């Protein structure tokens, strides 16, 4: 180990001298808020929509940029000048759709594990009439969904997609609205239906306990069907008639014995019957 490399010789001192010299030289920091560094005219970092001198937007949704974008990150939509129909360009909403289909699959319900084949088509004539009457207005989504459910029995994926194209709202949002409300069904209402009114009057009469019992018996949540689809739990409506007991209807006709365990026994009998019928 020769002496020079270990004892701090010239190298370290030269380095120290340099730092001391640099201590008094001009600094390179740009004091940002006070001093703004000039940006070259060819700078492509500014992503903004340009307005002409009259204040109108220079973009007329010709989709050149969206088409040319190498990483397909531009998602744009526009309405034609007479605001008749809505035009939309952007990466196909596979993410949203795929997420829905996978959400359905993960929710445990038997959904065929198909990857590419499209959803079952529906006859869209009735749906177009509804959309026309609702003026393609995404703000009236709830009424559109209710009328579609009355027309088709349930809100199929095809129906939701058609509504999405018609009103311009995202499929994800429409799916969210549909799955939020209990009285909207996403698949066919098969088998028996328990409808329980949950207005304050009926709740005082014990509707809450009935719903809890039924949810336990059918092992599902309010607004959905039992796993094998035998019995559905639906919201009913007593229109404020404030009867002496909670309004519980089975397939339409009123159930008189409204004690929670009685109703639960009835539900499990129905499921057993459905199971035996299924086997036979």
């Amino acid at each position, binding site marked *: 180990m020769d002496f020079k490399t270990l004892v701090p010789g010239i190298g370290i001192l030269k*380095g120290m001298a340099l730092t001391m010299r640099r201590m008094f030289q001009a600094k390179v920091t740009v004091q940002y808020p006070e001093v703004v560094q000039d940006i*070259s005219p*060819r700078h*492509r*970092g500014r992503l903004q929509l340009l307005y002409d001198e009259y204040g109108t937007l220079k973009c007329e949704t010709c989709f050149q940029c969206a088409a040319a974008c190498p*990483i397909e990150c531009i998602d744009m939509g526009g309405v034609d000048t007479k605001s008749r129909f809505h035009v939309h360009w952007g990466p196909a909403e596979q993410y949203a759709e795929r997420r829905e289909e996978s959400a359905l699959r993960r929710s445990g319900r038997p959904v065929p594990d198909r990857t590419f084949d499209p959803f079952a088509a529906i006859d869209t004539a009735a749906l177009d009439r509804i959309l026309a009457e609702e003026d393609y207005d995404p703000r009236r989504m709830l009424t559109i969904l209710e009328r579609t459910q009355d027309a088709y029995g349930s809100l199929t994926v095809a129906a939701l997609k058609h509504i999405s194209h018609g009103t311009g709202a995202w499929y994800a949002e429409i799916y969210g609205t549909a799955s939020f409300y209990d009285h909207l069904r996403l698949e066919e209402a098969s088998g028996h239906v328990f409808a329980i009114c949950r207005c304050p009057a009926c709740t005082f009469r014990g509707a809450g306990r009935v719903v809890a019992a039924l949810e336990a018996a059918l092992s599902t949540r309010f607004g959905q069907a039992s796993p094998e689809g035998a019995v559905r739990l639906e919201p009913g409506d007593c229109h404020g008639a404030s009867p002496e007991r909670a309004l519980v209807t089975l397939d339409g006709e009123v159930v008189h014995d409204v004690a929670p365990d009685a109703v639960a026994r009835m539900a499990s009998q129905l499921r057993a019957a459905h199971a035996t019928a299924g086997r036979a």
Partner: protein
Amino acid sequence: MSTTPQARVRSLDDPELYVETPATIFDAIPPYPPRTEREAEFYSVREGEMLINLGPQHPSTHGVLRVVLKIDGERVVDLDPVLGYLHRGVEKICENSDWHMVVSHCDPLEYIASMFSELVPVMAAEKLLDVEVPRRAEYIRVLACELNRISSHALFMGWLALDLGGLTPILYGFIERDEIVEMLAALTGQKLLFNYMRIGGVNGDLNHEFMSRLGDWMGHAAQRIEDSQTLINENEIFVKRTRGLGVIDRETALRMCLSGPPLRATGIPYDVRRAHPYGVYPELEFEIPTREEGDSYARYQLHLDEIKQSIHIIDQVLHKLPDGPVMAKLPRLLRPRPGRAFAAIESPRGQYAVYAMSDGTDQPFRLRIHDPSYFNLQSVGLLTPGHLIADTMAIMASLDPIMGGVDK
């Protein structure tokens, strides 16, 4: 002590994986059975040895690299790099995008020298399309690439010093880089991912702002970089820590598929600009600096000489710059004839190549990206065992891997 008992193979869906496991049982030993005898031999910990995770979130791995060190006290017994933390599947994405998009997807791979990572797919596409690039565009490409090489080398020297504990060289490195990168921003419009190369030429011609900045930068370039490196060049502590560290001889260098500064540090003058000339490099006169020792210090010194060579090249390019268009006439939709093309260039870290296959449609059939850091990083596993933990930092920094390119 043999390997710890392995739990059954667990898929990502397994709810048990998401149960909050107390920190005490976390260990670098993976929860699945060893897949090869090398992995079994690595994860069997003998007496006195300890497995420690270096990364993926660690101050001195250049990006998201995880290295599992098997250490005995401070000495590294064995090391197993784990990649994939930054893997985005760029090759698969490129197979689903057309040839223009491929250039943009390849941009952020070697993001410190993104001019090079754009140039390679462009050259591959041009070979497939048999298009002839105007000479002025070729010269501008060389000019932009050499500028980017200098900024990348300046950063490299700062990082090497930072990994050895010096606080100041990294700042001087960034000052050099910022000056060059602002100049390139005046030319291309961007500072990190330039997106300046086009199939058939370059995006825009030289403008006055770029030329004026280049002019006054050329004046003091070499002197200032030389000046700020005196901080490290003869610094006894720096030399002591890097001289004789991670020595590779010529034979192992070739066997380990090294390329770029690590290969030239062992004395083999392999530089793609001379070995397989592309663009206008045959007409430019420059020589390839090499060293004999092949250790970290030699790799560091090489970068300094290469900066001088690059400045010399830029000088010649500015004198020989021909006039003419900067972009060849090409149809908007590119459908190269079915075929294969292999294009390689000399990036600051080594030989950066793309093997493109076309099947006649507008999307590449297969786009293989050969990144120099991927193959240089391998020799960390060869060089580090036997040294101390502090040396793993020095060796990895001297090999200068960029994780964007390694993980693709």
